[in-house]
């Protein structure tokens, strides 16, 4: 039988437009201390550490190695890093725990978007032969997807505005955008500023534990019942932008369709992407989508996907959810998608 593994703690920073007064490790460290303290563990007790971040955000090579100072990496620890959202670092940690190599894992992710121009920086993740030389920015690519959805009759601009408004009507104290936010002017038509995520700096961290260790350390662990991630063909022109078969397949493999979920935390940085994800995940109005506000309320690069898993888990910890779905994405137009299904013990 597979080992049972749970998210037992979640912490995140405020997401802020600029954090120039602190370095990355200075921004990250309070979050690390918070999440570890929630479990009562000491750093030295953690069996495996895995992080997600991206050097292109800071413009400096190997910037993640400096962030390790905040973990306490001496004496040597078992550690790994993914150059993408921390949700994928969590996936790696999950496999490590499954293998029995560790009983607990610390997963963290952070991103500072403020030093650079995020829309330009993200062009560097595109196909370098045919696409990146044209410098299509992240908003432009999302706008192409939004127009495809409108042409297909899947949504319209008023519905997109409703998604933006609902996401920001959150009481999440860590959110960057809250309350009534004007839909604004077109940034790249058909997307307006209100359809796009705020640009911000932030960090998130979770602790995973296996089996009885999870029950010892957490009153109501959020058991990971399934987790899977899938990718689309890299060329946008090959894909049907109105659909997300990779999300659907990941959800199927994670067991998301076996029973309804009461909560879904979706990593949809653009309003139009929530339309795609709802369809791919077959979510109807019976599921509460993004009570945290999601990426439209706070989108710290490389941490927002991990934060979706953390937010879903935290609702289970608090008894506000029994079965939740968490989704993370990376790349343009929902290129890569990860789905996790989390459950609390029956009450």
């Amino acid at each position: 039988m597979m080992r049972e593994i749970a998210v037992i703690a979640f912490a995140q920073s405020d997401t802020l437009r600029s954090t120039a007064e602190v370095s990355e490790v200075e921004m990250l460290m309070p979050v690390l201390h918070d999440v570890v303290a929630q479990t009562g563990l000491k750093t030295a007790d953690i069996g495996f550490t895995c992080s997600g971040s991206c050097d292109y955000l800071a413009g400096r090579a190997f910037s993640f190695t400096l962030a390790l100072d905040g973990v306490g990496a001496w004496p040597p620890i078992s550690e790994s890093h993914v150059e993408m959202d921390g949700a994928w670092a969590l996936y790696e940690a999950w496999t490590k725990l499954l293998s029995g190599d560790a009983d607990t894992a610390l997963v963290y992710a952070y991103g500072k978007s403020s030093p650079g121009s995020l829309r330009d920086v993200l062009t560097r993740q595109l196909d370098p032969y045919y696409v990146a030389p044209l410098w299509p920015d992240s908003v432009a690519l999302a706008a192409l997807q939004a127009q495809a959805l409108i042409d297909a009759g899947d949504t319209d601009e008023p519905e997109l505005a409703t998604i933006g408004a609902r996401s920001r009507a959150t009481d999440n104290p860590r959110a960057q955008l809250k309350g009534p936010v004007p839909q604004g002017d077109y940034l790249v038509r058909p997307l307006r500023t209100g359809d796009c995520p705020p640009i911000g700096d932030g960090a998130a961290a979770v602790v995973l534990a296996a089996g009885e260790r999870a029950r010892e350390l957490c009153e109501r662990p959020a058991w990971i019942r399934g987790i899977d991630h899938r990718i689309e063909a890299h060329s946008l022109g090959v894909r049907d932008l109105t659909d997300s078969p990779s999300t659907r397949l990941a959800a199927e493999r994670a067991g998301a369709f076996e029973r309804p979920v009461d909560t879904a935390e979706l990593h949809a940085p653009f309003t139009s992407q929530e339309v795609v994800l709802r369809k791919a995940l077959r979510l109807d109005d019976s599921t509460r989508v993004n009570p945290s506000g999601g990426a439209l309320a706070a989108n710290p690069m490389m941490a927002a996907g991990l934060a979706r898993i953390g937010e879903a888990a935290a609702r289970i910890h608090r008894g506000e959810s029994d079965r939740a779905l968490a989704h993370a994405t990376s790349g343009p137009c929902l290129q890569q998608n990860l789905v996790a299904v989390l459950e609390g013990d029956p009450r």
Partner: protein
Amino acid sequence: MPEVLKAPLVVEFPFTRSLGPVQSAFLTGLRERVVLGVSTRDGRTLVPPVEYDPVTAEEIRDLVHVGITGTVTTWAWNHEPRRGQPLDTPFAWVLVKLDGADTALLHALDAPGPDAVRTGMRVRIRWAEERCGAITDIACFEPYDGDDSAVTVHAGEFEDPVHGIVAQARLDYTYSPGRAQAAYINALAEHRAVGERCPACRKVYVPPRGACPTCGVATSEQVEVGPAGTVTTFCIVNIKAKNLDIEVPYVYAHIALDGADLALHGRIGGIPYDQVRMGLRVEPVWTEGGRFPDHFRPTGEPDAQYETYKELL
């Protein structure tokens, strides 16, 4: 809190990339005003072409000559073009399915305004005047309501094919060093060296980064160290670095400032390179108006005993 330090940081590189046979044929074709796609075994034509079928992962290299006219499959109006984008006047981003192709190519469409663009509209390639074998050989698309262009099989053979591209990339950042390093940099400008002590293990880190890498806790207690220190180890540099106005050979050393528990890096001057040694006592030298030490020079004191710095190697 003191003013946040900021400085421009430009990351710029000419990425030199080699091309596979299909990419080479496609980009050489653009140079010759020919658009090539690639056929999959089940009869689809992919444009832009790839070397492996995205569905089956099978290697594919049967080239097909497709049209320079096509149909917009989706679009987005970009009223504020950004640096590096194909046009500097407002334009539409478009995915275009060229005649004869089953997949769409991303590029720009030159149109007078968003009202002149719609999904399904007919467009044609506008070639760049100077072409070199790159995606930018297509200057952009333009509206076109003439006939479809002919589609034929093409061997994809050209004289003098391109085998690589150089993709220029420049990103502009504003670097901020954070609280601990800013305090260090500000103190250096006043000819002082400031470290930070770990509250747990009591080690003094110079330069401070705000965290103790051993204990994983924040450091905050400032400690003045130096100004003199001891060379713990060194190397002799014989290669002149680009944009660096220092005669080779020179010595680059680890220097443990007095009171510090970590050695920092610095250049040693004021002594012939072959006379630098472990244990040499040195002090920082600021040039006029310099915000940081230009180099370290011997103090003239007797060498430090190995026992006093062996833990800092």
